[in-house]
């Protein structure tokens, strides 16, 4: 127990927590925005792969780091538009469409990587975002600007959802699309915009992995982070503030398991530590499930004039 306290009290631990949490914040906010508009987006896992790949590719081709982030956002938005076309335009099953997007985006990224780099033994690298050491604030000054952006997005999205007409429209189409339509809000347009913007955030989440956390693109680098984001949104009961809390909590467990693994030195198989964050995600879902207030129209396709 004393070990854990020592770890949690140390500064490098919290640096790691924030670094792990950053892509989860982007991804969770993206899923949250889609779901508040009433659309599940299981495309996140693949969109993160595509964002990680395209963002990295742009920087590798000589573009700036922020241009890489923009490319990743644009990639995410493009897949989001496809998801919107399938789930909003054609009212297909949101589960199946999302999984299809994940498979397509992942396959396209891996294919693109292999076409571009057929015979590389070590992945080609780029110079990633630097730490903001000039900031002079402990923990935060060891992070990249993307973390700052993620932290800024949390209150921004909360304000946008709760205090602006656009946010009200998003919440309306997610709770009661018939009523929204009656008020002159276009369900199709509102949902499409929400999915496209949300998916752009998922693309940025992926680009954090290749442009800040690491400096190259690897297969399987997203490794379930997208699914964790889907769980975190339920845990956060669809509120941006709580989403940040959830992402940080996940970061704490993930950073803790890494350090316990090093400290434990073989008492338990290392896989048991790696399981911990996933298992705790399920536990968290069970704990909040009873109180969860899903957006009322979530996963219900809306066809105009059909009940």
């Amino acid at each position, binding site marked *: 127990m004393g070990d854990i306290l020592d770890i949690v009290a140390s500064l490098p631990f919290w640096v790691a927590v924030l670094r792990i949490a950053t892509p989860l914040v982007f991804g969770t906010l993206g899923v949250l925005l889609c779901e508040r508009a009433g659309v599940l987006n299981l495309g996140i896992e693949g969109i993160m792969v595509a964002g990680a790949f395209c963002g990295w590719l742009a920087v590798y081709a000589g573009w700036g780091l922020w241009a890489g982030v923009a490319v990743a956002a644009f990639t995410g938005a493009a897949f989001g538009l496809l998801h919107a076309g399938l789930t909003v335009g054609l009212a*297909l099953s949101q589960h199946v469409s999302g999984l299809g997007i994940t498979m397509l985006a992942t396959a396209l990224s891996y294919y693109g990587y292999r076409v571009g780099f057929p015979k590389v033994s070590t992945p080609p690298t780029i110079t990633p975002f630097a730490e903001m050491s000039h900031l002079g604030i402990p923990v935060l000054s060891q992070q990249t600007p993307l973390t700052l952006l993620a932290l800024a997005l949390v209150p921004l999205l909360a304000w946008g959802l709760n205090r602006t007409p656009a946010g009200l429209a998003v919440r309306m189409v997610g709770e009661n699309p018939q009523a929204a339509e009656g008020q002159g809000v276009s369900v199709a347009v509102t949902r499409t915009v929400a999915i496209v913007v949300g998916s752009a955030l998922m693309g940025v989440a992926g680009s954090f992995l290749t442009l800040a956390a690491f400096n190259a693109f690897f297969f399987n680098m997203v490794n379930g982070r997208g699914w964790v984001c889907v769980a975190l949104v339920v845990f956060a009961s669809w509120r941006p503030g709580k989403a940040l809390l959830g992402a940080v909590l996940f970061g704490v467990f993930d950073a803790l398991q890494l350090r316990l693994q090093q400290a434990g030195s073989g008492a338990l198989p290392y896989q*048991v530590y790696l399981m911990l964050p996933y*298992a705790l995600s399920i536990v968290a879902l069970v704990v909040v499930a009873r109180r969860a207030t899903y957006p009322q129209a979530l996963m219900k396709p809306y066809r105009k004039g059909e009940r």
Partner: protein
Amino acid sequence: MRLERRTHASPVALVVAPVAAVLATLLVSALLVRWAGAPVGRTYAAMLEGGFGSVFAWTETLTRAVPLILTGLAATVAFKARLFNIGAEGQLYGGAMAAVAVGGVQGGAELWGPVWLVFALMLAAAALAGAVLLLGPAWMKARLGVDEVVTTLLMNFIVLLGVSALLDGPMKDPTALGWPQSVPLAGELELSRPVQGARLHTGLFIAAALALALWQVFRRSVLGFDIRATGANARAAAFAGVPALRTAMVVAAISGALAGLAGAIEVAGRTGYVTMDMSPGYGYSGIVIAMLAGLHPLGVLGASVFVAGVLVGADTMSRVVGVPTYIADVIVATSLIAVLVATLLTQYRVRWARSTR
């Protein structure tokens, strides 16, 4: 733009839709093949040749189809009842592990009982392992309202890490020179191979028989009716007296068991032991297959052969023209989306004009 339900499907649309879906898929992948700088015609020819061009190609394709049929059936039965089981990958590994736990022998030792008994117990253990892995999430959904999509997805990671720990520890083959690989299955338990010099094994017949059985369950049994009713409208089904919790649990048990069997039959028919790379995502492909098949058990057979042929053909094609094998995954994912859209357009017609009502 709005969608209008067709009162009856037009016969033209029923023929045109699947053809259009296939053409759209071929067009998209043709663009990607061009981008890789390979001749499109030769690439497709090589894929067709590699997947279906010879007796050997057919045996390879059918071998690959066996686990896909089983995970496809697992997804079919679950999705039909609107239980979104995305955890077939983990259930497959759970089943494979259980099979080796029952029928594995260290260093050529004797089997602990008569072969038929151990074989039956091996399959039962695999089915049970798969079922248990899905019953947890299904119960949490029915009783606590926890979304099963997320829990089954997360379970995949937990199960795979668990299998990895077992392969490093108690289930490790000590003679495998440090390679993480389970103790081998006893030779007597391995499925026989009817075609000389090919890997095709009798697991194909088990998988096909299960597809036929599931088809009959859907068509003729009370359970099949309950499953279809629950999937069509859960609230109406419950109101009409369909036992909701029991149906959900039975569906979860069947779906998980089928995925678990996929693992056991892969071990008994193809690999002979468990490794971390024995399934290149068969669990996830099963969902694609179920959707391509329109959630019909017999359609699963055809869809599995198609997907398996694409995967096997891509391996051959990659050696001949050098296009990365990932093109197979692109084709499978694109065909899923194309078929979904095509199916929808046979049921709905798109009205571009502003609505008049």
